[in-house]
């Protein structure tokens, strides 16, 4: 989706504010939202559909809201869509259906241990052999599509070199539609001059992790 979220290479954004405090959370609500994202007993919202839901936030809202505020907005939209609660319930704070049962209270060490189990794997078998090999020159698709995709606009119709092959990984463009499918995943390296023209430094590169259907042999 050619949306506001696809920020790579866009011009007009100012200097980076490098002087922020070191604390992990800068406001209480950031920690609350982070904790909810880690613990909410909501299992049927795939990560890629969640990311697409975030991309679909109104563009002005997307740029103006803080990161965790946009997570909250994404959770709310995805959960209302999935029938977990209604907008009326969210506004009133009162559930019209009985709770699904109590969640056991856990201590600090149990949370630390649970955290250690959350290293999700996205590898997935693919029947077809890999089309490309390390060192091969490839060209990316020129045109995107309306759905969720992980090929940014700035890296379209560009020639790069396969740096590594990661085997089959779940394909986000399909997963965001509720279809569990996989494709070969590659890290592709592009010269900065290929992406940005002759003013870029000839020594520099940008690498992206790209699925097989984003690529053609060049």
């Amino acid at each position, binding site marked *: 989706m050619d949306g506001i979220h696809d920020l790579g290479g866009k011009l007009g954004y100012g200097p980076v504010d490098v002087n922020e405090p070191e604390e992990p959370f800068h406001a209480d609500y950031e920690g609350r939202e*982070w904790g909810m994202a880690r613990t909410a007993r909501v299992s049927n919202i795939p990560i890629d559909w969640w990311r697409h839901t975030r991309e679909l936030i109104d563009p002005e809202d997307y740029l103006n809201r803080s990161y965790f505020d946009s997570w909250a907005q994404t959770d709310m939209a*995805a959960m209302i869509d999935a029938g977990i609660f209604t907008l009326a319930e*969210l*506004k009133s*704070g009162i559930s019209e259906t009985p709770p699904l049962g109590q969640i056991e209270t856990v201590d*600090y060490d149990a949370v630390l241990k649970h955290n250690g189990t959350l290293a*999700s794997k996205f590898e997935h078998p693919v029947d077809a052999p890999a089309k490309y090999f390390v060192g091969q020159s490839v060209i990316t698709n020129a045109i995107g599509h309306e759905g969720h995709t992980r090929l940014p606009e700035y890296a379209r119709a560009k020639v790069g070199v396969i740096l590594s092959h990661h085997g089959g990984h779940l394909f986000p463009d399909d997963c965001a539609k509720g279809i569990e499918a996989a494709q070969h995943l590659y890290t592709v390296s592009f010269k900065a001059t290929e992406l940005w023209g002759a003013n870029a430094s000839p*020594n520099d590169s940008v690498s992206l992790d790209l699925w097989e259907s984003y690529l053609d042999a060049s």
Partner: protein
Amino acid sequence: MPSFDPKKITKIHQHLHSHLPSDPALRVKALETILVEKGLVNSENIDRWVEVYADDIGPKRGAHVVARAWTDPAFKARLLADGSKAVGEMGYAGPASGHLKAVENTADSHNVVVCTLCSCYPFAILGMAPNWYKTAAYRSRVVREPRAVLAEFGVELSEDTAVHVWDSTAELRYLVIPERPAGTDGMTVDELAKLVTRNSMIGTDRDLKTGGV
């Protein structure tokens, strides 16, 4: 079940925009309240998660990984070959570290990490991402003019130093291994870990200070 219908989501976003307060604290509170009502979250457990990410899980984990790589060549080889496994070996597995790739700075190359499409970050070893990492300014500019962005962080690079930008577009997450500073030969892993800054593991810091200066 999700509808997987983008038009429906756009409409819900509009409703949320008109019906909820604009203060993020109130919006997040509304979400927590209804999830508690539904029996889907436990507020005390959220308190614990906040504490865990404020105390135990943060850049000091990544710093320890880097310091060990500096002092233990066999570990460094394992880290470069399979970052997730090496980090798991240290007991540091966790969210967004299932596919971890370590990239190493050298005298003539520098690595820097971004996620231009959202803000993917290796939470399990670096903790919460700094705000700047999630801003439109960083996400838009660091792929196009990395040297200008690095200069804002105080990192000045000569033209001969190659800059490699890693855009985390899939589920791989990146950890930069900064160069070990000179004059640290006798230091222990714990002492070395204290020299490793969070930004150096993202790539917006380069020359680590040896302390005491």
